[in-house]
């Protein structure tokens, strides 16, 4: 079991619903302050996006953030360099596309990330069938490979994915790329399908953008991931304080739901 999973299972064991905010690395000089603010406000883990030119699984908000970050010269190495200067006290998980890791060199990328306490990676264009090389590179560094289960994933496949995911299983809340929505998604059934075959922590993401949605998702899962709603605010100029308020509002909703 990866260190990440040990940590996240402990969160669950404490009866706590996990909150995982997403930040695109390098969108501004302040981005690390945003990350710290989120940790202070009660995030249980933090997703760090490494920008890619062609983010196939991302909607307009994260596309814009990636572009802004790339225009500022962000690279895998620059992010690692910056992360070396902070210790936020909760696990970091990167989210990026395979070509970024591949081009950095799989072994080298994994080693660099592990060095700055990154504990896992979500690579949306790397399904289990294609990930053996990446997984092998991660293993020596206790870097978890986190897979998604989508509403379209058939049951037999859910079992396979849930069995291979590490740290947690990402339950895709709706058939869409990242982005905000007010619609009720498919998170409940996806989470149920995963739970039916595995006791790995299940976090719901994609389409969770308000504390109310997070509360609902938490009722059938172990935690939620919030990306676009937060990134939108940051692109619009949110300060670390604003981020703290944002995260706190989710924290409160999740904690309340669980009382």
């Amino acid at each position, binding site marked *: 079991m990866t260190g990440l999973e040990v940590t996240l299972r402990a969160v669950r064991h404490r009866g706590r619903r996990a909150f995982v905010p997403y930040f695109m690395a390098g969108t501004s000089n302040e981005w690390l302050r945003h990350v710290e603010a989120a940790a202070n406000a009660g995030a249980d883990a933090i997703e760090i996006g490494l920008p890619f030119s062609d983010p*196939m699984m991302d909607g307009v908000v994260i*596309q814009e953030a990636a572009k802004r970050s790339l225009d500022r010269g962000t690279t895998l190495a620059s992010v690692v360099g910056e992360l070396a200067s902070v210790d936020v006290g909760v696990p970091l998980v990167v989210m990026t596309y395979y070509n970024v890791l591949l*081009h950095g060199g799989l072994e080298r990328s994994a080693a660099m990330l592990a060095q700055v306490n990154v504990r896992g990676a979500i690579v949306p264009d790397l*399904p289990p069938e*294609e990930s053996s090389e990446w997984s092998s590179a991660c293993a020596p560094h206790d870097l978890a490979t986190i897979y998604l289960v989508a509403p379209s994933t058939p049951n037999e496949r859910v079992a396979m994915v849930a069995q291979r995911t590490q740290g947690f299983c990402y339950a895709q809340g709706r058939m869409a790329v990242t982005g905000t929505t007010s619609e009720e998604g498919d998170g409940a059934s996806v989470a149920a399908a995963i739970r039916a075959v595995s006791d790995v922590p299940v976090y719901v993401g994609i389409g969770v953008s308000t504390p109310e949605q997070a509360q609902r998702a938490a009722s059938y899962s172990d935690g939620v991931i919030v990306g676009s709603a937060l990134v939108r605010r940051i692109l619009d100029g949110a300060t670390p304080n604003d981020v703290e308020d944002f995260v706190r509002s989710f924290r409160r909703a999740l904690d309340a739901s669980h009382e």
Partner: protein
Amino acid sequence: MNAPEVFMDKPDASGRFGDFGGRFVPEALMTACLELEVAFNDAWNDDAFVQEFYDVLHTFGGRPTPVTELSRLSRHLGLRIYAKREDLAHTGSHKINNVVGQTLLTKRMGKPRVIAETGAGQHGVATATAAARLGLSCTVYMGELDTQRQALNVFRMELLGATVVPVTSGSKTLKDAVNEAMREWVTCVKDTHYCLGSVMGPHPFPWIVREFQSIIGREASRQLTEMGVGTPDVVVACVGGGSNAAGIFAGFANTDARLVGVEAAGGAAIATGSPGVLHGMRSMLIQDEFGQIEEAHSVSAGLDYPGIGPEHAYLAKAHRAQYEAIGDDEVIPALQLLSELEGIVPALETAHAVAWLIREAGTTLAPGTSVLLNLSGRGDKDVAQVREILRGAS
């Protein structure tokens, strides 16, 4: 001793051609890719489906397209050049072969709708055409810049009943149209087939598209035999994603013919790229040192793509085919020469292959060399652009 390798057969179970190919897609699309593979396998082994595919291409698509001996160009270059006339296929290029196949497959899978990406609009028009014929609903994603540069093709797709969605992300061109089509496919994959336009994308697309396009090579091989030419010394085709090249190579992969793919210099994935993963496939890509994909730049919209189909990456690595690059400056004179000598105005894409012949005739191509040129499309779509370029130059 090993048996000699068979080229252009089925990829392996993971969709690999050697090191290239694969299925690098979000989990949300994985099931669709797997189901598509099953459906295609099933259809392609069903004589009735194959027959319908041929019948539609015959009665609707204008196949077989002829092989024309280019006597005057041959004399001019000291070669023996035969052109496979995909410019005479319905909608003006080889693109119709693929879309007829994929729309028939869509119907067979019980899906009422297709989506597609398009650059200059050729694949979009072809998809809209094939969809109209079957009464499938059709949405085409096209970079916003391209919708402006190719406004007439947007209207043409609309005439055919398709909806065209301008893509405003990234460079607002073909690469981004593919991204956007993939993103949209996630939202509608249940009732929608993504009709990909070249031998690219995740498995099984490179294989499916190559199989549907292989009719070009099979026809040409038979026709050259009938003409008494036999196997040509050289088979040459332009390469954007690589579908017309794959289609014609398929007829000659296991012969002695020298196979040549010609990329645009500003999008030469083999000559100037490196291995990487994009749009669901591992292939050769134009990218920077950090794995960020670069924009391709070519006078010809259909070659304006930073990647290449994975099977071509493999054929290059296995030294079965060679890939050359032609710059914009050689393209217009090639288009003019073919027009004046043969009465065929080729597409700018196709003109790259002609330009390569002009460059190599008399040097690497000895006098009398027999050449099969894939005349992938007609130049009607490009005439306005060529006029502007020549005006600018004079």
